[in-house]
């Protein structure tokens, strides 16, 4: 417990110090609970998610960093590896491939990479996965782009 808290404080300091290091990621710690974080990540360019800003919710276990943080999308996203309703993410490094050497920042980077490179063979969103697996890239992209516009692109005015 103490270890995880200490580590999260260090990560928090690191985030504050290098705020501009990665312009695509913004990590925010909950005011009252260091085990709750939110992150804003920009959709990678040349993907249907470009132009969107996606909110992630981090819930960090007390055994962190020995156990991975639980991350889910708060913003709706049409992606084969993200549950459309719950926002749950199917990503190996958040499960069995987790390493304590990862940080919240690197998890965000991994999620951005996942957005750019979906894995349709282990889908949480079957519709999206099926579109990709059947080779309907156009269909997948237009659906994903539509949901990005609907849910992730900041409203003007």
């Amino acid at each position: 417990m103490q270890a995880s808290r200490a580590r999260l404080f260090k990560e928090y300091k690191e985030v504050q110090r290098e705020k501009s290091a990665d312009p695509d990621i913004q990590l925010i710690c909950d005011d009252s609970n260091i085990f709750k974080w939110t992150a804003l990540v920009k959709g990678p360019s040349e993907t249907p998610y470009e132009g969107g800003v996606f909110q992630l919710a981090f819930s960090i276990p007390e055994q962190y960093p020995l156990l991975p943080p639980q991350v889910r999308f708060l913003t709706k996203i049409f992606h084969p590896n993200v549950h459309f309703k719950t926002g749950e993410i199917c990503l190996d490094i958040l499960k069995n491939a987790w390493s304590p050497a990862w940080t919240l920042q690197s998890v965000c980077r991994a999620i951005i990479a996942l957005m750019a490179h979906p894995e349709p063979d282990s889908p949480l969103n079957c519709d999206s996965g099926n579109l990709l697996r059947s080779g309907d890239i156009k269909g997948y992209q237009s659906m994903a782009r539509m949901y990005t516009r609907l849910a992730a692109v900041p409203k003007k005015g």
Partner: protein
Amino acid sequence: MGHSDAASPAPAPAARDARKKRGNRTAAKLKQSKLETRRGQWLNNSGQGNDGKDAKVAATPTGARSNAGSPILASPHPPLPRRRVDSRSRGSDPEDREEAGATGLEIGGSDLDSPMHSPGSDKSQGSGCGAQRKGFSGNGHGPSPSSGSSVWSSSRSVSDAEEDTGCPEDENEVLDDWEAAADALYDDDSHCHHSSVPTTPPPAPTTAPPANAAGPETIRSKARAWAPDDKFRPQSLPSISKQASFPASIGNSWAGMGMTAAQQGILSLPVSCPICYEDLDPTDSSFLPCPCGFHLCLFCHKRILEADGRCPGCRKQYNTASAVEEGGGGAKETTVGTGRQMANIAPVRLFRSCSMGPRY
């Protein structure tokens, strides 16, 4: 000028020279071909034929100067190289070829005696060669005997082969040639990152592989002398200690201590544990539980072992041996006081670097 010099002395030499020549044949031939190619390069680089020489005159000193390290070394070179090349390619060519037919066995003998005789001959002739030698040994500023000897040993094979080929005069020039060549090529490359020190050792490797086609090839591709930290540089070269003894190599103090750039990189270890972000103490930083080299503190290692036991760096299971080791280490770490840890840092680092030395 080059022609006459080379031609006249060649026939003159006594029986000794003749014998040496014979021994040299193979090496000389090799050398000759090398020289010709190199000469071609030079000519191309510096212009045409004799004009090229003049250009060379101007060029070499600058090159030497660029090797800011040792002015002594630099000064003697410039004049020699040009003569050498010409004499080699034109004057001594036929001889070498004639002798090529004879025995190759003598090489070993001539090698042995040449180093011994060469200093003497230098003195007697007192020409550029003497100065040259001085340049070598004098570099050390009252060079320790060891450094001097290392110079000889490193350059022996070269000088032997070349010195034997012709007259005493040739001898001097031969030795210079390599350095000059190195300097010139060096200049061309404008890789000036090295002081002149490294230029002295290179002769050895170049001629050392006798009668191997590979020798010249590598040299040419390299197009300059081996740097001490060059990965292509033969490990057998003893130059490290020598460099340490040269004043010019002060900048190379790491190399002198037997440490390479890679090892320096190792020295700049992560200062904090990548898992808990706490500072690594000396015990931690010398603790390598996994062959992948991932560093972490003993506390975190223990916690990981109590959980899934996989290395955070490579995600492979820590083996049981390291687990045992870890247990001991963990106990030790708790007993170490922080003040003492600080005091220990330097020695520990040194110790580690030393241990790396031989392995490298």
